[in-house]
């Protein structure tokens, strides 16, 4: 079937902003191209060589003109830059009330996890008019998560989180592409995002309902014996994790710690992740270096499980940390906690 669009759908709140800027630059392009082509044609018609020994007047330059065609483009460029930054700020800063969805890219599929524990492969569902914040990572190589209809894109980088947000403004089904070349089946790493009304969405969610991410994370929290040290009230061995998300944490900078005096860190997802993978990287003030906590690498906590743990930590309210039961044992610095089934 041969349909022939040249304008992608514009289905998010940021899309019109991007489009306005796009149209402005298109206008600049057309203007400049018309000017250049027009003058080329005009000069060709006016000044073609009429005789073999014709010698035109020899101009060598004009300071005024040269300053003019340096200064005017500079001003135009600065305008475009400033406008670009304004749109970029819209693109990178998600609203505070965004719904979190976690995305893991791997060769060659996108895995999505919802806060309620629902999972999808190469598909995503969103509610019309409700902002969604994607936290993206990769299990293997670089990928890039792109939804052209929303004008958003972000690379999936192994080893860290990147974010992307959108607020759909139009119900429908849109493409998800991987735009960073990722190996043999790169072009099959595509998916669909379905934007639906709130009611349909809730119905869909309930059909897919599983245990919530935070609930899964709570199980892991016990299974990986995190609870042994992060025990809530007693903060002798490790800091409490209650309401830690997006708090500013002063860091330990006494002997041996790798950070500068007075440094703090924002406890965002990247920091939580780093602290699980490499506990000694940035230790909260009051705890010794190196950390007594074992490092939970990919063989102990997969990227999917990492999202569940973080969802749980984010959900932890004051006084909610479970107490340790008699079965939990202390993880040792050398050995790993008991292997997972």
């Amino acid at each position: 079937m041969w349909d022939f669009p040249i304008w992608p759908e514009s289905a998010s709140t940021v899309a019109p902003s991007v489009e306005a800027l796009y149209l402005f630059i298109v206008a600049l392009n057309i203007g400049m191209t018309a000017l250049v082509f027009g003058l080329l044609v005009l000069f060709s018609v006016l000044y073609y060589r009429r005789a073999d020994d014709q010698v035109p007047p020899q101009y060598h330059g004009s300071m005024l003109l040269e300053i003019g065609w340096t200064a005017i483009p500079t001003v135009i460029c600065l305008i475009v830059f400033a406008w670009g930054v304004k749109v970029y700020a819209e693109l990178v800063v998600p609203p505070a009330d965004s719904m979190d969805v976690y995305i893991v890219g791997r060769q060659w599929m996108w895995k999505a996890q919802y806060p309620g524990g629902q999972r999808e492969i190469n598909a995503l569902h969103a509610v019309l008019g409700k902002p969604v914040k994607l936290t993206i990572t990769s299990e293997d190589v670089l990928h890039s998560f792109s939804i052209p209809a929303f004008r958003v894109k972000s690379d999936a980088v192994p080893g860290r989180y990147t974010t992307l947000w959108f607020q759909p403004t139009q119900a429908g089904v849109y493409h998800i592409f991987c735009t960073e070349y990722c190996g043999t089946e790169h072009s099959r790493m595509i998916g669909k995002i379905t934007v639906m009304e709130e009611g349909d969405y809730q119905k869909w969610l309930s059909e897919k309902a599983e245990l919530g991410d935070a609930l899964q994370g709570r199980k892991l929290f016990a299974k990986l014996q995190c609870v042994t040290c992060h025990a809530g009230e007693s903060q002798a061995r490790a800091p409490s994790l209650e309401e830690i998300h997006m708090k500013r944490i002063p860091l330990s900078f006494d002997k041996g710690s790798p950070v500068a005096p007075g440094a703090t860190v924002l406890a965002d997802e990247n920091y939580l992740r780093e602290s699980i993978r490499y506990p000694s990287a940035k230790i909260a003030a009051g705890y010794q270096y190196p950390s007594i906590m074992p490092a939970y690498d990919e063989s102990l906590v997969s990227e999917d499980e990492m999202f569940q743990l973080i969802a749980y930590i984010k959900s932890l309210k004051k006084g909610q940390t479970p107490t340790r039961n008699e079965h939990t044992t202390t993880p040792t610095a050398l050995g790993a906690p008991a292997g997972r089934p």
Partner: protein
Amino acid sequence: MSTIITSAPALAPASKEPGQGGGVDYLNHETSIASWLLTLDHKRIGILYLVAMSAMFVLGGFYAGLIRAELITPKGDLMSSDFYNKSFTAHGVIMVFFVLIPLVPASLGNFMLPLMIGAKDVAFPRLNLISWYVYMIGAGFTLVALIGGGVDTGWTFYTPLSTTYLNSNVLLTATGLFILGFSSILTGLNFIVTIHRMRCPGMDWFRMPLFVWALYATSVIQLLGTPVIAITLALVGVERLLGVGIFDPRLGGDPILYQHLFWFYSHPAVYIMILPPLGVTNELISTFSRKPIFGYSMMAGASLAIAIFSFIVWAHHMFTSGLSPYAAMFFSLLTFSVAIPSGIKVFTWLATLFRGSISFDSPMLYAYGFIGLFTIGGMTGLFLSTLGTDIHFHDTYFVVAHFHYVMVGGAIVGFMGGLHFIWPKMFGRMYPEFLARMSAILIFVGFNLTFFPQFLVGYLGMPRRYHEYPNEFQVLNVFSTAGATVLGVGYLLPLLYLPWSVFFGEKAGRNPWGATTLDWTHTESPPTPHNFEETPVVTGEPYKYDTLFNKESALAGH
């Protein structure tokens, strides 16, 4: 001494100089194969490069044809995705590293530079020949890897895909490119020293033809940028061999660091490709409108400014890569700094054409094509340097179209113009003018038909390096492939008529275009082995047409 013109330029293309035909020139004074392969003559080395790069261009073009053929239909029905990936990698590696980067400097630059500044040769002729052999050895390694086994990393070799996840011949390709880098460095080094130390008496900096300025700026980039990519590729090789995670996050490394180091070279490399054609275009515009370049010093300064600015904008290739937002804004702002000198160049050419005496010989048609395509290519760069729009366009066909407008519409078309301009000097023969004009027009039309639809399909969101794609992109892709066919014919014509003209073309005479630089006024076509019988002494500016076409010299020519 008075400033008389000792040799009047020929006015008509076909006019013959006394002594033409019977004289000794650099082509006929020795003719054995060994005399070519062991030559220290910059002119012959330029031709050696030309031959090698033409072969590479045909090979790269072949892979481009395969890609376009596959993309006629949305389904991957012509070839496997693995072979498709290997094809676009081969296309990218060959075209970028073996064609575009050395294209103008190593062939036209080698041939013209000493002639233009009145030198007998480049400063280090032996090094010049070594550069060519290094190029050939690098090409050998890479071609064995690309054709023998295939590499499917894309020409960017992004980690950790290239270091950990692919079992193709990355190591061999990286070795080839590492070796090739030295060819580029040595050529740049040779040119800089030549320009500094080998100018003939009276050839001040501001009497040099602007092509020489462009070569100078290019050489600066080659010298300062290439070593960084060399060490980066070496690190990729070591990471593959030893399993050290310098760029692998699992082993503590940072894949983004690779991108930083890679683009620190590869963005300036874009200007290695485009600056020399910009320089050639100056010669063409001036010669074929018989006017000095408007604002000479600004034009020379713009070349240097582009060379320096090109080093401070690299991270605009990484806006979506998880770069810090602050760094993104910083690099976006700096990126616009390159737009200004590029704009200056276009305006300068227009001002030069104003009230000129414009003739439409085939080199001028290419120059017109160059200005048009370079303008579109440059202006569409605005979408990609602007943060708000780049997020959408990054890694889509819009980027593909943009850099092809600059790299093919700019570099290749500019090169074709330069080649048609210099051809009579190189071989002393004219090519069939009608076919040359046909080819210029076909390339312009075919090019736009190929790549303009890619802007549109890129705005729709079609990602690059896709073997299969959704149906709604098909119409534009079919247009693109159709255009590629026209473009292919446009390229095929010169491949036929240029070699033909070497043997059967009309004798060109010393200065068929009425140009004013030393290479045209003071050497025969083709030049003698040591360029100048007597060392020229320059007393004036490079582009001055009013004295050349006064009555006496016009009479003297007949």
